[in-house]
């Protein structure tokens, strides 16, 4: 459903890299992206296909970082064990975009605030940058401070233009990153249950926990970025 990137280039840990000059050599490989365990891509063999996500493709080499393990304080999100390193998504075919999409894409990207209808477990969430998102469930295996990347969306729009997927957009067309803020819970709910002819009221309590997210980035990739990442322009078959 979502890909998880523990360390992106622009976020807090690079401060750490500056901090420790001895480690800069090892930490220049960005461990960027991790698919949730549902995707069955392997981390060890980087795909040889021309990837559209070349930046993320660097991350498929498991970073060697024994020095990080021994570091004491401050421990940041960079200290992720090797087996939990993010795995880059592997695409077998390069991204194909139609000519008409390429011609109208600059109009979408030049209009600045964007919204996205990201889907998570088949529920749509209309998000803009900086929004608070309280998922209606507790997301497993995430810690506060993690950066996730939503890779399923049906709409990506600006004020006048909307990029529509059929039914979903290819994840290489956009970037939507969220950060895990923590876990929130609701007040205790008490449900009174009664049975017939039984003079007893059963009280069922429940208190669910929810994951809090914050949208860090909603971005439609421009034509230059798509071409740099190896997108193939496809002629319109019907037209």
């Amino acid at each position, binding site marked *: 459903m979502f890909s998880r990137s523990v360390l992106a280039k622009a976020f807090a840990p690079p401060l750490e890299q500056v901090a420790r000059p001895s480690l800069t050599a090892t930490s220049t490989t960005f461990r960027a992206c991790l698919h949730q365990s549902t995707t069955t891509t392997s981390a060890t063999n980087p795909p040889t296909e021309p990837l559209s996500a070349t930046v993320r493709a660097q991350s498929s080499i498991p970073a060697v970082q024994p020095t990080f393990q021994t570091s004491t304080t401050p421990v940041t999100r960079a200290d992720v064990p090797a087996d939990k390193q993010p795995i880059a998504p592997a695409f077998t075919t390069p991204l194909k975009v139609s000519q008409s999409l390429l011609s109208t894409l600059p109009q979408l990207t030049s209009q600045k605030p964007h919204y996205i209808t990201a889907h998570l477990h088949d529920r749509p969430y209309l998000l803009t940058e900086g*929004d608070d998102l309280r998922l209606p469930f507790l997301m497993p295996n995430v810690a506060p401070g993690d950066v996730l990347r939503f890779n399923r969306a049906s709409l990506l729009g600006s004020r006048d233009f909307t990029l529509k997927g059929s039914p979903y957009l290819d994840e290489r067309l956009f970037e939507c990153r969220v950060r895990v803020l923590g876990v929130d819970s609701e007040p205790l709910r008490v449900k009174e249950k009664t049975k017939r002819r039984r003079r007893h009221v059963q009280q069922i309590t429940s208190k669910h926990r929810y994951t809090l997210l914050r949208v860090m980035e909603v971005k439609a990739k421009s034509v230059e970025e798509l071409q740099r990442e190896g997108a193939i322009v496809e002629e319109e078959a019907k037209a």
Partner: protein
Amino acid sequence: MPVQGIRSVTSARNGVGAFILQCKRLDFHYCDWAGSSRGMVSFLKHQLNAFAKQNPQIEIRVSPRPHKHPVIKGHYINGREKAVCVRNLEPEQIFQKVNLLKQNSGEKNKRTKKPVTSINDSVRGIWSPYHGGLKSV
């Protein structure tokens, strides 16, 4: 003066740029004598060190509170505090409670219906009957 500036203050969006964990302090209270603190004492002896090392951004205080049940108190950046009583709990259960306090935002528990809250202006604007698709009469 043709135009004047109205002073305002930027509003915080924790996590968009930098992320700051909302839990700033955890207080552990225990009793040396009482049996309900047995798990807590074991937790303090064996697991607290590793927890503190993993979460350097949380200040940790340990203090005895004789003849009382063991309590963990989390202090949050918004000034609120949350306390969890951990009497008769096993160290693993206490660890879960500590994690719960650590990940919490410190806000009062509220039931919300809408998943997304935004402080941005609407991207496509608020619908108005005077714009778009005007019918000439």
